[in-house]
């Protein structure tokens, strides 16, 4: 095999990609050495001691989630062509993601844990059928109970039981409806 023979690693580029190394302005401004442990601890303390009441924000996301569930339920009677499964899922997914993302930032770790399970569920289903909506509604009810009960942190054994029950519901759903999993998102 001669040197000019093209192989998979030295073939002519199909797409002309140009690599650029921009000047590292940040590095030139901040210098070297990183941040001290003292500063990082101080920053973490500040994060942990924040007194923001997460409940109004959480309630807002829960209301959006409920709207999404209601909309998907109304659309159940419509034909496949009229329904946009992706849009319906998105309307439930986005508020769920907000709950997952923000709960833990404001001491509601259990909201993040449950929100994470809900996001995982919504990320893989292909169409929001009636059984899937029942599961999402169960997540909603549980999350509302956590907020109303002001259960901060992970909720201990009680929290673990709630999460396990929701997890089991999702498993049962996937065993019963293995075809309703979006192959692109598995």
């Amino acid at each position: 095999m001669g040197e000019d023979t093209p192989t998979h690693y030295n073939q002519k580029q199909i797409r002309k990609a140009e690599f650029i190394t921009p000047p590292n302005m940040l590095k030139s401004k901040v210098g070297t050495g990183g941040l001290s442990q003292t500063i990082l601890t101080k920053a973490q303390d500040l994060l942990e001691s924040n007194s923001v009441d997460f409940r109004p924000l959480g309630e807002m996301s829960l209301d959006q989630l409920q709207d999404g569930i209601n909309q998907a339920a109304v659309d159940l009677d419509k034909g496949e062509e009229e329904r946009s499964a992706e849009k319906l899922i998105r309307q439930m997914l986005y508020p769920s993601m907000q709950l997952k993302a923000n709960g833990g930032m404001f001491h509601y770790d259990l909201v993040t844990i449950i929100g994470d399970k809900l996001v995982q569920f919504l990320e893989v289903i292909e169409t929001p059928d009636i059984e899937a909506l029942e599961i999402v509604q169960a997540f909603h009810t549980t999350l509302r109970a956590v907020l109303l009960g002001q259960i901060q942190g992970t909720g201990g054994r009680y929290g673990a039981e709630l999460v396990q029950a929701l997890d089991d519901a999702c498993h049962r759903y996937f065993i019963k409806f293995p075809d309703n999993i979006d192959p692109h998102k598995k």
Partner: protein
Amino acid sequence: MAYDFKSVTILVVDDNQPMLDITKSLLLTFGVGHVLTAKDGKRGFELYLQYKPDLIITDWMMRPIDGIQLAKKIRRERDASNPYIPIILMTGFTEKHRIFEARDEGITEILVKPFKARDLYKRLYQIIEKPRQFVRSEQFFGPDRRRHSEAAYDGHRRRQDDVEKMFPAGRSEMSNATKKDLEKARAHLSNVRDQAGVKENKDITIEDYDLIFVDSTD
């Protein structure tokens, strides 16, 4: 010596006020000199044009312009003053396809919420100490989506080295070792054909795989 962020300007964009306040406080604790805040991507873009920050930290889901659209505008619009500016996206999404989506639109780093102070610092550290190169092609402009640059890699290049091993310099014939390896592979393929009931000289096609599948479930 430690980092001195006094002369650094960071723009934080988030429609969630408490989150905006917390991120700002963390950056001020790190010693950042100027922290600008905006409640959506539209205002964020205006502040970016006006103040030319050194870094942007943005949430994903916002209206009317979300974090990804903001990144797109910065990377692609002509009036963007610094298309190379590092952009950290804060999000609760961790699924691979979401991360790829963000990366493909020019996001430099992802910060998954909820996060700790150290997580935010780690992203800043990556941007300062291990900045990504930029790639400009017909389809894409943004930070190199592979973190490691090939130039720095000095180890075994499996594809290239394996081919060179098969055809040592100056030889157009395979080495005996390679011939043996190929013989083994041929014998293995022959076994597969036998098990699948495919005749010796027939190529295996996708239909044959279906056949194997049907047989095994029966």
